[in-house]
């Protein structure tokens, strides 16, 4: 048997130390007692976690390994000394070595009382849930008048006292043996099967399906449709993965999401119970390996990428294609960032393909109108391209026969739309438009990016050319399935297959910057609190914008008259501008930070895009809360958002059964579920639909009749809608409530065409690159729908290539 004895004071002179030393030698033939001292234990402070310090780890390990613990406490002010209390606080916070541990309390004091009051306090403390020791009841050993109790050799003088100590101690030896039996893990076996349970979420119950074999929890599926996005997303991935990894219910809850964390853990516990096993046994099991801090980690790579969204994955894939080693560091448990949240169409002009599609009403008018823009309204850098565009339009109109109009496009048209679409003035009158050389790269390389993605395994649907909201033209390349996830899945597979490493759960806290200003790696914090260092001569920032950081949005905003404190966002909660701050730490210049984009057609409750019926804008019919149309539905995102905000924010997308068929985000089961939940409205008549959304039936009926007549004539005299497709005619009818939410931040780190991050001085920052939403300058005042995917895959690819090429040059020179 092995015991640990804790001297309950840090004083240099202590009778309690003497008492333990006496016990150690007196009982040496029966047990081995190792004495631990409190000297050097830092004062407990929850703002300064020192659980990993050697001295506290030593206590933790020794106590964990011991068969029992003897605590010898003095009495200070009727209670235990602060030094003893401090170690108990350290060992009941993030570490719990006392849990179930047999403990014997003894004490020595000058006073005849012999620490009686301190011992009672200590027993209460050891009973606290964080400590949860098994304290031996009874057999209270108090050594009063301790200053007279020992002889010069350190032996207790009184035989009667020694006899009593022996009887207490032998009892403790038996107690420890029995109490430790309670700590032997019980065997667990499950009745194999699939168990349906409900976890408590923030917005009501979350249905969960837990699959169990006879020995293991195999799978946990949580239906999160009813839960708002936010930190809870992390709960739904991390907690189930830790439960399965460790086959344990001993899982740390996530701060800021304790209700949902506990909901998931309790839900699995319920399933365990239904499978005939005792969940308490699983709660006593050790934590999953990934949740335990195994010490700091250090890595080396040729390139380190910050952020595992589309831009970061593209950069990593491009590094791997050149045979170099890459590590991606991602702050969330799941990869994909905002890219998994997109609808999936990626803009790239591919005229050979597009000309196979017939033009739709209004499109010819759109290009004619753009080509008629007076040249004095075109900025000098773009003028040459604008003239080429005018020729292209003239040629197209000349060569197209009446009734055989096909879909026109060209890289230059894409460039002109990106430029015009992004040219905006802010509230202070500051005018911004896309930086020519960056916009040129974006639009000229767009198709090459599509082809590159195809090589990496992304399958596009060439049967359809789509236009996401605010794209202004049909040039969207849409993956065959899974929307934005298709890109992430293909790139992840490629990156992992080629030996790329992805470190999730690791927010990067700072850049490693050498004395000469060169960036040579990153430092972050791992899931268990360990420091993660990646040394690499090239760092690519691909961490996204700051759409989920309301404070930062408000700080820089110069475009919107007001950004509400509780504004919703379509973004992942990870998108908080971290990369912009990292860039600034290296002196980076920022560009266009005041311009952010609202997605007009977001879910009013969650900011998400994928609820309700999301159809192509030619089929949008937007009505305000009075049931009236209020905007050209084919307009840019900011035009739609401003119009919506001016009409009270909340508005409805009206659809009929045919328009419903063109929705790219949903299926009948999802639709039925949302109707049931009341987040989507359905009725057999327009009048009934109007009543459901509390608007005047006659107004809605009139509005729709007018709209249908515009579709027939291919012209909208009220708002000038540019393109039409279907009428609202076939029951059942639908109304999807929508409201603008923050969608994209156009501003960011200033980069050049090679993705170098530029210093405030105008020089490049050696070793630092940026791609995707973290960078600014391209989309300027308003980003076209579908251009974001083009941006991340084009500049992500370039970043990976440049980072590798420049190292080769560096190592040669």
């Amino acid at each position, binding site marked *: 048997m092995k015991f640990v004895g804790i001297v309950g004071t840090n004083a*240099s002179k202590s009778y309690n130390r003497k008492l333990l030393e006496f016990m150690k030698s007196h009982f040496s033939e029966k047990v081995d007692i190792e004495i631990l001292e409190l000297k050097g234990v830092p004062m*407990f*402070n929850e703002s300064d976690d020192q659980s990993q310090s050697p001295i506290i780890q030593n206590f933790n390990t020794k106590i964990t390994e011991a068969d029992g613990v003897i605590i010898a406490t003095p009495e*200070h002010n009727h209670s235990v000394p602060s*030094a003893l*209390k*401090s170690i108990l606080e350290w060992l009941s916070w993030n570490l719990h070595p006392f849990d179930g541990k047999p403990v014997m309390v003894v004490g020595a004091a000058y006073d005849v009382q012999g620490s009686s009051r301190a011992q009672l*306090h200590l027993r209460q*403390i050891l009973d606290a849930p964080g400590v949860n020791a098994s304290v031996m009841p009874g057999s209270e050993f108090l050594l009063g008048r301790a200053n007279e109790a020992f002889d010069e050799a350190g032996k207790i003088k009184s035989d009667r006292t020694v006899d009593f100590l022996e009887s207490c101690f032998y009892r403790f030896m038996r107690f420890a043996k029995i109490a430790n039996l309670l700590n032997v893990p019980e065997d667990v076996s499950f009745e194999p099967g699939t168990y349906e349970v409900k976890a408590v979420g923030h917005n009501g119950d979350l249905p969960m399906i837990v699959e169990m074999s006879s020995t293991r929890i195999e799978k946990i599926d949580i239906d999160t449709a009813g839960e708002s996005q936010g930190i809870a997303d992390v709960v739904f991935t991390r907690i189930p993965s830790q439960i399965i990894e460790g086959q344990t219910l001993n899982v740390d809850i996530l701060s800021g999401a304790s209700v949902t964390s506990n909901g998931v853990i309790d839900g699995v516990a319920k399933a365990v119970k239904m499978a005939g096993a005792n969940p308490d046994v699983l709660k006593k099991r050790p934590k999953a390996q990934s949740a335990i801090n195994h010490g700091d980690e250090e890595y080396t790579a040729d390139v380190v990428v910050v952020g595992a969204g589309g831009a970061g994955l593209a950069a990593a894939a491009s590094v791997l294609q050149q045979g170099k080693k890459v590590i991606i560091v991602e702050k969330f448990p799941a990869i994909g960032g905002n890219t998994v949240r997109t609808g999936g169409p990626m803009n790239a002009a591919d005229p050979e393909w597009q000309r196979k599609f017939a033009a739709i009403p209004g499109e010819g008018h759109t290009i004619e109108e753009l080509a008629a823009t007076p040249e004095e309204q075109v900025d000098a850098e773009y003028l040459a391209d604008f003239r080429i565009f005018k020729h292209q339009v003239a040629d197209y109109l000349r060569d197209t026969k009446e009734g055989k109009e096909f879909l026109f496009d060209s890289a230059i048209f894409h460039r002109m739309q990106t430029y015009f679409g992004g040219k905006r003035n802010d509230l202070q009158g500051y005018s911004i438009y896309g930086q020519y050389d960056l916009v040129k790269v974006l639009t000229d390389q767009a198709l090459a990016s599509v082809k590159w993605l195809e090589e990496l395994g992304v399958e596009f649907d060439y049967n359809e050319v789509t236009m996401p909201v605010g794209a202004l033209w049909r040039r969207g390349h849409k993956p065959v399935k899974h929307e934005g996830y298709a890109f992430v899945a293909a790139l992840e597979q490629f990156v992992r297959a080629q030996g790329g490493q992805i470190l999730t759960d690791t927010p990067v806290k700072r850049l490693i910057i050498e004395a000469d200003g060169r960036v040579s790696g990153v430092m972050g914090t791992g899931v268990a609190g360990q420091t993660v260092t990646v040394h690499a001569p090239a760092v690519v920032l691909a961490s996204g914008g700051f759409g989920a950081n309301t404070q930062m949005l408000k700080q820089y905003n110069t475009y919107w008259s007001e950004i509400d404190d509780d504004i919703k966002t379509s973004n992942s909660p990870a998108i908080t501008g971290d990369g912009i701050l990292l860039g600034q730490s290296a002196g980076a210049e920022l560009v266009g930070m005041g311009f952010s984009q609202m997605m007009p057609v977001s879910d009013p409750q969650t900011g998400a895009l994928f609820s309700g019926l999301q159809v192509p804008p030619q089929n949008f019919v937007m009505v305000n809360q009075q049931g009236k149309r209020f905007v050209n539905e084919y307009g840019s995102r900011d035009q739609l958002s401003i119009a919506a905000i001016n009409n009270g924010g909340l508005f409805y997308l009206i659809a009929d059964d045919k328009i419903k068929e063109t929705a790219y985000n949903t299926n009948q089961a999802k639709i039925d579920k949302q109707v049931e939940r009341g987040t989507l409205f359905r009725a057999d008549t327009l009048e009934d639909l109007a009543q459901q959304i509390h608007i005047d039936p006659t107004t809605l009926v009139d509005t729709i009749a007018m709209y249908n007549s515009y579709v027939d004539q291919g012209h909208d005299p009220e708002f000038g809608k540019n393109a039409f497709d279907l009428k609202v005619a076939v029951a059942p009818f639908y109304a999807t409530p929508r409201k603008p939410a923050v969608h994209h931040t156009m501003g960011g780190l200033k980069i050049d065409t090679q993705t170098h991050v530029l210093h405030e001085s105008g020089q490049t920052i050696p070793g630092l690159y940026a791609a995707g939403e973290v960078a600014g300058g391209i989309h300027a005042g308003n980003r076209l729908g579908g251009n974001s995917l083009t941006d991340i895959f084009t500049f992500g690819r370039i970043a990976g290539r440049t980072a590798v090429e420049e190292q080769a040059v560096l190592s040669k020179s």
Partner: protein
Amino acid sequence: MKLIGMVGTNSNTSTNRKLLQFMRKHFSSQAEIEICEIKHLPAFDEPEDRQAPTEVQALCEQIAAADGVIISTPEYDHTIPAALKSAMEWISYTTRPLINKPVLIVGASHGLLGTSRAQMHLRQILDAPELKARVLPSSEFLLGHSLAAFDESGDLVYANKVQELEEIFEEFQLFVKINQQLVKDNHFKTEQSKAFSWESAIWGGERA
């Protein structure tokens, strides 16, 4: 009336600190409450020379100059935090300014119980011969669910708790005055307490 509000923790974020800040603001017309922190105090280690570090001396002087002390304590493991206990040990080990000093105990906790057990222990601790504070009897102020208790401007949002605190604070002000009467003539006992030591106590105070 001049009072000290002692934050019973060394944590950077604490609803006990918020509670004291609220009291300082809310009772500013009745008393001047100076908030004092224990987070910079070194850990008590029973130095042989009985010399208090300067931070402890400053705290003791602050207490000595005040008419009364409010201690707001969290609860860690069913008792007061080690940091607060350490402050008490320094005070009792040096000039013992809490002797006969009126003390009001309050406490805030994230959970439901509002530090009930820690407050009980603190009363017993303040009764120790080297501390001998005059703790307001029969009133305890327990603030549960403290994370949701304060709004952005630091005001206590639970109306019944505000009322309770107002009554307790009124009692405490009275108690401070009554206590001045109570301890007026007991110099002997005070001096005895100041000189108290466990080493000598067991000999009936005859040997130091």
